[in-house]
């Protein structure tokens, strides 16, 4: 099993290491194929323009998926108990995204810890395109 981090190493307001990536059209098409979201607004340029959009745009769950990496790289892939995301603004091809998680609260009960994080994804021009919250449960490591 992956070694779990020690929740005592993290204070309220501390950020986990963030994750940055740029969204390409290929990323969007790959995610459509992997996830099963074939809404033409996400892959058909002519269709997107026909409804008044400047181009196709990314599914919210694509950058919502990128953001999970911030949590699981730190806590491991099996510690996230709740992951809630709100789609605030549109992500376009070539947007540069920065994914963040900051500790909001920490409860320690015996050997188990419940940590809650505020989440956000921000673009290169400072737009907050996604907000959310996550709960992570960890077992305290013995010193």
């Amino acid at each position, binding site marked *: 099993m992956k070694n779990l981090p020690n929740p005592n190493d993290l204070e309220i307001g501390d950020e986990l290491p963030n994750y940055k990536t740029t969204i390409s059209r290929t990323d969007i098409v790959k995610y459509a194929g992997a996830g099963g979201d074939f809404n033409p607004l996400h892959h058909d340029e002519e269709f997107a323009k026909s409804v008044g959009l400047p181009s196709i745009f990314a599914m919210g769950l694509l950058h919502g998926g*990128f953001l999970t990496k911030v949590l699981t790289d730190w806590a491991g892939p099996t510690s996230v108990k709740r992951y809630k995301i709100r789609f605030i603004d549109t992500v376009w091809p070539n947007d540069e995204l920065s994914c963040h998680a900051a500790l909001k609260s920490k409860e320690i009960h015996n050997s188990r810890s419940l940590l809650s994080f505020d989440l956000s994804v921000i673009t290169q021009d400072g737009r907050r395109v996604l907000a959310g919250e996550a709960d992570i449960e960890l077992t305290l490591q013995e010193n």
Partner: protein
Amino acid sequence: MIDKSMSGKIIAEFDFPIVATKVKEFSLALKNPDPLYTDEAHAISCGYPSTVMPITFPVTFPFHIKMKDAVMDSMKLLGMNEKTSVHGEATFEYKRPVFSNESLKAVMKVGKIFEKSQNSGKTMTLVEIIYEYFDKDNEKVLIFTNLFIEKS
């Protein structure tokens, strides 16, 4: 006009097998090559039963459901106007981790339907579509909730 009597109604029931190659494809599409998602032998050597199902993997339900377009067909069933409706939120709640080679049973149903005032003074209607996933022992292992917003 959204049919509020639909709240609580089951829309579909379907099998949801967790296939390791699909888990790997999904993880790589999220630019996450962590071998705990992509390499079964590595995951097993680390003490897991197989590769770990990524947190947002339940969104792949369209591959397993019999409806032609699960989201659009559900909106039509509810009487939602797809031109003024947007995907507002997604929530994933896990009772336990899920691994490749498990096969879950899923129930897709309508959750709460409620209204909120917009800053403009107009009203918007919010509709929850809930997916509950059960393991072979019929234990609920996760709940995935989508919130759709129809603006007036």
